[in-house]
């Protein structure tokens, strides 16, 4: 039975990966080139208010007569950079503390890990809300709140990696050769720890976009009139019967998160063949 040929190749895998990459690239382009991709200004009243979708306004106009399509494109300029910044900051903080925790052990390990445990024992959205509310509305504050919620994930992951790599033979060899501790950590351990952490970070980009939009939706992130997807949906909720107002930003979030999830899934399957 062991020698049965496996069903051929992950043909299905490459398709979602391709779609995921395409979607993400599209939104990256929107981030960089939004003004070139539309002829309207996101803040201008360009038509009568609450017009349904038409050839002039693909996604209609909102309660102030602004073009929803334009605002959705410009929305990428907020969501994407915020997500990247939050993930990068969390990764830096988390990986640093996690690596220290795993490498040093003892008191430092205990202190950091208890902080991780406590932070992770809050439902993430709730903690982010509380912090964001404490700091006051604004995308910057929301970003700080998200970093506070997110870093423990990477700390835990990084610590586990360091603990595992530390036991490998080449590290023992370096120790026997008399390498200094910082050198062992930086040269011999950390380079082998990044793969799973970075995969997880890619997958998290989508989740962070969702969280940021959620905070904006309840009024704790971006504030009107910023064309941020979450707050646009919030405006759309107020214009419940003009469904198109919320459609654009919602579809934007859905596609980009789906895109990141596709990519993350493909990476995950690639590095963990068991799940095929």
């Amino acid at each position, binding site marked *: 039975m062991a020698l049965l040929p496996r069903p051929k190749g992950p043909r299905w895998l490459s398709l979602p990966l391709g779609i995921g990459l395409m979607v993400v690239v599209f939104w990256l382009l929107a981030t960089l080139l939004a003004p070139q991709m539309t002829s309207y200004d996101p803040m201008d009243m360009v038509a009568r208010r609450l017009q349904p979708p038409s050839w002039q306004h693909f996604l209609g106009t909102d309660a102030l007569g602004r073009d929803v399509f334009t605002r959705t494109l410009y929305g990428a300029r907020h969501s994407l950079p915020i997500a990247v910044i939050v993930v990068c900051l969390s990764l830096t903080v988390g990986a640093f503390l996690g690596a220290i925790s795993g490498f040093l052990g003892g008191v430092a390990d205990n202190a950091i890990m208890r902080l991780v445990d*406590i932070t992770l*024992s*809050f439902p993430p959205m709730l903690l982010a*809300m509380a912090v964001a*509310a404490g700091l006051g509305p604004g995308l910057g504050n929301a970003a700080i709140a998200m970093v506070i919620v997110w870093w423990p994930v990477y700390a835990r992951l990084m610590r586990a990696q360091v603990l595992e790599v530390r036991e490998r033979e080449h590290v023992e060899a370096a120790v026997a050769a008399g390498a200094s501790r910082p050198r062992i950590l930086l040269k011999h351990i950390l380079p082998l720890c990044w793969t799973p952490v970075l995969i997880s970070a890619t997958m998290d980009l989508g989740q962070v976009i969702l969280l940021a939009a959620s905070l904006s939706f309840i009024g704790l992130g971006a504030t009107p009139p910023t064309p941020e997807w979450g707050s646009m949906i919030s405006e759309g909720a107020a214009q*419940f019967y003009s469904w198109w107002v919320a459609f654009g930003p919602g579809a934007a979030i859905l596609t980009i998160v789906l895109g990141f999830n596709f990519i993350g899934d493909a990476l995950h399957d690639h590095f963990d063949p068991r799940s095929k």
Partner: protein
Amino acid sequence: MTRYILRRLFAMPFLVLGIVTLAFLLTTLTKGDPLTAIVSERQMNDPTVIAAAKARWGLDRSLPERYVIYVGNLVTGDMGTSFITRRAVAQDILFRLPATMELVIAAMIIGSTIGIALGVLAAYFRNTATDHFARLFALFGSSVPVFWLGLALLFVFSVKFGILPGPGRMDARLPLPDEITGFLTIDALLAGDLRVFIDALWHLILPAFVLGWSVAGTISRLVRANMLEVLGREFILTARAKGAGEMRVVLRHALRNTLVPTLTVIGYSFAYLLTGAILTETIFSWPGMGSYAVSAARGLDFPAIIGVTIVGGVVFLITNLITDIAYVIANPRVKLG
């Protein structure tokens, strides 16, 4: 095993204290006068209110002293007074907790049913169209913002087609059953009022589905992976060689072997459900903790936000503890780290 459970139980008070401490630190996070975190703006000009608040929370004392007072107040169940409702936060939360629980539990039932069904189908028909559809459906659920999905489904099913009721827990024209459990469906049944029961259930469907779908993806992914592993084991062949039908092979032999990890992931998905409930409740005007937290956050009602955060953290902690212990009990051969 007993040692593990005892150790976990022993750690609980410390974790709760950690949650409280972190929440306390959040109150000091607010810019400027910590009074703004306790007294609403309108009352800021009232010297008696301010003096009372300062005395109660020890605001003119040092940070450590204030911490002790804060924890002391919490122990007696005092979480302060909400600016918005003007009632004790603890009371508000207690009043709203059942609605959230009812929603979350309903969502959990729907989410795990969808998740398990999709996971089993995807594994059994792996690499076929069924598998791809199931995976896509699951992925969609965890990618879509629940607040947008809620809006969209409300619009389609309630406004366009009028099949399902609008927001809220029940039709306001119906008599409210006596509150016993706080679960409207159960209270209606206890009161013997079938009409209210059906109406409450009818109102529950859409929000619970929206919320449940968001966790179905995680569950189905895990069930699929586990089912794939189990379906490849030899005892599955034994079952087929016995003459068991495919239904029996899949449900009785394979699925039962994936039960423990499945229950575990369902337990852990509770956190996502709590998070999702915050937004779902807002969309569906669901009078639970989530919509309370949102209106508190919008109105910068700090005692309420902190109160909800602490309660949310503790609820989360308890469900995770139960899940972990259940896992150990169900799986006595598991290696404990």
